[in-house]
């Protein structure tokens, strides 16, 4: 099985070079990363974030990707990209070998998100994870009213061909973190345009569409 990066956020891909303006969620992430630190980007896609961190913040890092065209794009951008299926864990990396392990929109697409989360925090001091919220009110309403697996702009696949095999809600994720005794250092919840709003802050699991978590052990 293969994981296509940004499996759900199809609409948001920049093709700009080097330190081009970043998608809002990536912009939030990059502010959480210390300059000149070591990063690992799981499912790095075309390397927008990695390129930005390299050129604007002096970070050194590797991207992991499985999609052939994305790998070529990363090579063209001069990034270190390693072809690897995240379902096989992070065995290329030793314990505590990087500062931050990032995974945007891929958690829900791996075969064992819980194990990958463990592995991310084995390799990195911190992990930054973004994923879509299956508890978003429209998703709940879709299932309730139509009785069918929800489809939307952020979840554009049929139930049988979706790469998103482990969708969860923010609450599910936080329960998992609690079970693993992980500390949530930051959480930002945004809408599908990756913007923050007051209402979302009040009822994140109902109104938020995408969450960005920063966790550590």
């Amino acid at each position, binding site marked *: 099985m293969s994981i296509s990066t940004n499996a759900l956020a199809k609409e948001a891909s920049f093709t700009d070079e080097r330190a081009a303006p970043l998608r809002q969620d990536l912009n939030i992430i990059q502010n959480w990363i210390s300059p000149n630190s*070591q990063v690992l980007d799981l499912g790095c896609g075309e390397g927008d974030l990695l390129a930005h961190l390299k050129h604007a913040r002096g970070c050194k890092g590797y991207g992991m990707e499985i999609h*052939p065209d994305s790998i070529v794009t990363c*090579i*063209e951008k001069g990034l270190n990209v*390693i*072809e690897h299926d995240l379902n096989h864990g992070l065995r*290329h*990396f*030793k314990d505590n070998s990087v500062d931050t392990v990032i995974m945007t929109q891929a958690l829900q697409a791996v075969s064992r998100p819980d194990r990958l989360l463990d592995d991310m925090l084995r390799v990195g001091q911190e992990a930054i994870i973004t994923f879509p919220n299956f508890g978003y009110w429209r998703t709940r309403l879709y299932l309730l009213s139509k009785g069918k697996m929800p489809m939307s702009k952020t979840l554009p696949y049929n139930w049988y061909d979706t790469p998103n095999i482990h969708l969860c809600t923010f609450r599910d994720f936080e329960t998992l973190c609690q079970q693993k005794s992980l500390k949530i250092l930051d959480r930002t919840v945004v809408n599908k345009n990756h913007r923050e709003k007051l209402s979302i802050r009040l009822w994140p699991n109902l109104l938020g569409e995408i969450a960005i978590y920063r966790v550590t052990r």
Partner: protein
Amino acid sequence: MPDTIPADSVGVVTPSVAQFNEPLSLRCGQTLNHYELMYETYGTLNADKSNAVLICHALSGDHHAAGYHHQDDQKPGWWDSCIGPGKPIDTRRFFVVALNNLGGCAGSTGPTTINPDTGKPYGPDFPMMAVRDWVNSQARLADYLGIEKFAAVIGGSLGGMQSLRWSIQYPERLHHSIVIASAPKLSAQNIAFNEVARHAIMQDPEFHDGRYLEHNTLPKSGLMQARMLAHLTYLSDDSMRDKFGRELKAEGINYGFTPEFQVESYLHYQGKKFSTSFDANTYLLMTKALDYFDPAQYHNDDLAQCLNHAQCKFLVVSFTTDWRFSPERSEEIVDALVESDKDVTYAKIESDKGHDAFLIPIPRYVAIFRAYMNRVAQELNL
């Protein structure tokens, strides 16, 4: 050669010979006082000599990597699929140097050369070569051509070992090391295959302890067996099924031991062709160099430590059905490079062609190779 030279071919090329009179100390303890290297170049060396690329060949390769020697050549050089105008190693931008390694049998000093001390071919007396000796001699060739630093050193299989060795041995003399379908050292299984091949050669009655040339003969049968065995380890089960299946040469089987299946006849053809075109002593020597290669052994078997002082960037490529140099072996190199904080890009190419895939222009392989070489050119403003 085709009736007209294809636009993406380097065309008709002429090999050159470089003579070296400065003694070369070898890993085995012996010294070569004088030697020659046969080489070819494609493209033009730029004014600041920054666009040179070195191609390292594998077991049976040589200096003829691209283009044609004569108008009536049937086949181009062994890596013509990747070298030429518009190809991944684009000769409009890069100056490509390909040589026949020392100990080879395609023009460089080797077992078939006359030993100046005896007036007879070196034969089995030719010193055992190690990958590091090849790299040293390649560096001398670079000096001879006025190349201080290669934009990239590139090789597949045994050639990949040379490319990796370059990064350790001459860290300041290359910008990029490209290691394709290779390994940081051979496995026991690989050494075993080599030993079966060597055994076949050395047991041939015509081998005469390696002095077959003095007896005006060749250990053809041994070399043929060696090649047949090696050749089938370069293919995958799938590619053999696709290519031959159980097809017969003629209609019906005849309950005899002459080749009946197409695959038998193919192996016989390949083996026979090789047995008269390649030197048996060279084959022995090249397989030994493969077996001995293990740069990490001098660093507590820690490849990351061994690669620590490499300064270049790396591209590592493997192929899914390559069981002679499997993706896992390439990933050992990648892991060590990651551990020592080197810049590395790794691609595992889906292919059913086995080890031979590295010589075949598989679209995804070509796309990655091209993108990486574009990056090399961009970084060096070529």
